[in-house]
């Protein structure tokens, strides 16, 4: 269930200062071009204009716990068409980052994070593909973090320095 929350001006300020591009938040005048352009909104309850309005008003709890926050495919159609040049996708990233820090993260997404910490890739590397690579005349492992211990240690160290490993264990870092 969606929680109803009081406007929180401090939250709005945090969004505006949250990352590159999110300082365009208050430029939005609610024309709705974004919602009308959204391929996800065609099929789901995701309403881009409403999300931006909630962020302007500081309705923190409603945004943080909402399922819709995760229905944007980051296709940038709304950004291209926005007459006010609001960096909608940048704002969405800031909001999602905040939700993750609050502990709102899907189990499937945690698995991707864990895979990153394990092999430096978003997807697992199966035996079948290894065999296929060899059959095709490619090396069994690609020259990436996969199968390269030093590179993987470095990659993991970068994530740990940023607190990513703790974030994957439940946020609030």
């Amino acid at each position, binding site marked *: 269930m969606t929680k109803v929350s009081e406007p929180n001006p401090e939250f709005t300020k945090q969004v505006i200062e949250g990352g590159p591009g999110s300082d365009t938040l208050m430029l939005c005048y609610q024309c709705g071009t974004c919602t009308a352009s959204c391929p996800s909104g065609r099929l789901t309850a995701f309403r881009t204009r409403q999300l931006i309005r909630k962020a302007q008003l500081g309705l923190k709890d409603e945004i943080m716990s909402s399922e819709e926050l995760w229905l944007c495919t*980051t296709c*940038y159609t709304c950004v291209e068409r926005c007459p006010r040049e609001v960096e909608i996708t940048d704002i969405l990233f800031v909001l999602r980052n905040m939700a993750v820090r609050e502990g709102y*993260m899907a189990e*499937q997404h945690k698995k*991707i994070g864990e895979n990153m910490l394990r092999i430096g890739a978003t997807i697992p590397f199966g035996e079948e593909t290894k065999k296929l690579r060899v059959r*095709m005349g490619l090396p069994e492992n690609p020259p*990436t973090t996969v199968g390269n211990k030093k590179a993987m240690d470095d990659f993991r160290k970068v994530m740990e320095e940023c607190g990513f490993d703790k974030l994957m264990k439940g946020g609030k870092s």
Partner: protein
Amino acid sequence: MPHKFAFFLGCVAPLRYPGIELATREIMKAMGVELTELEGAGCCPAPGVIRSFDQTTWLALAARNLALAEAQKVDIMTICNGCYGSMFEANHILQHHPKEFKKVNDVLAKIGMKYSGTIKVRHFAEVLYRDIGMDMIKAQVKNPLNFNVGVHYGCHFVKPTRVKQLDDPEKPKILDELVEVTGAKSINYRDKMMCCGAGGGVRSRDASTALRMTEEKLKNLKAVNVQMIVDVCPFCHLQYDRSQKDLPGYNIPVVHLSQLYGMAFGMPREKLGLDAHETKFNL
């Protein structure tokens, strides 16, 4: 001057569709482009998921990849819209936001690395179009193709245009021209610029929503009787290819532009890895 790039493989091509990796290596060699190995490169990292989880981690991991190429003094070339989107945008942020630049370099210092901001991030299709050119490509076409093709641009090849400045976001033409130089015909279809549905972490979190978006695209592609979908992104490729297991009746094979060029340049079919596709290629 000869063209030389650090080849960024990403995750989905080498770990799911190695045919895309091999086809790219072969076609670039045929056109005299030298590809260096980016030893130890990691995930770009994926824009839809990792950037959604934590932008600092996203930026720092991207900077590590950029620093690996910078050490070789060559620009990065990707074969994936996701990798292109992530590293291009991360590079743009690092080059324009001194605070982020410092923060990220403080992290890289812990692994003895540094990024100075001198590298360009390139997409292989854009390299083909702008650096290599139609004449050179045409000269390599040994088997002119006569397929009717539905081109899928994906989202992060030309967008966001404010930083990419590559082509029109509503009616681009680069990929259509790159496809037609092989002899194939690019057929227009409804909502051609619409997303495949996989991005933004939607495929992993809410597979059924992603699938419904993919079905919209497949319906529109089927309505104009294309023989295949041509993409420039292994993740869109995966979404179209694997979704058709759950969406019977379409049977539209999915081919990455590098694989299409492989066919046109006369590479043996088995080197294109088309057998590994879920949606069988019978043309």
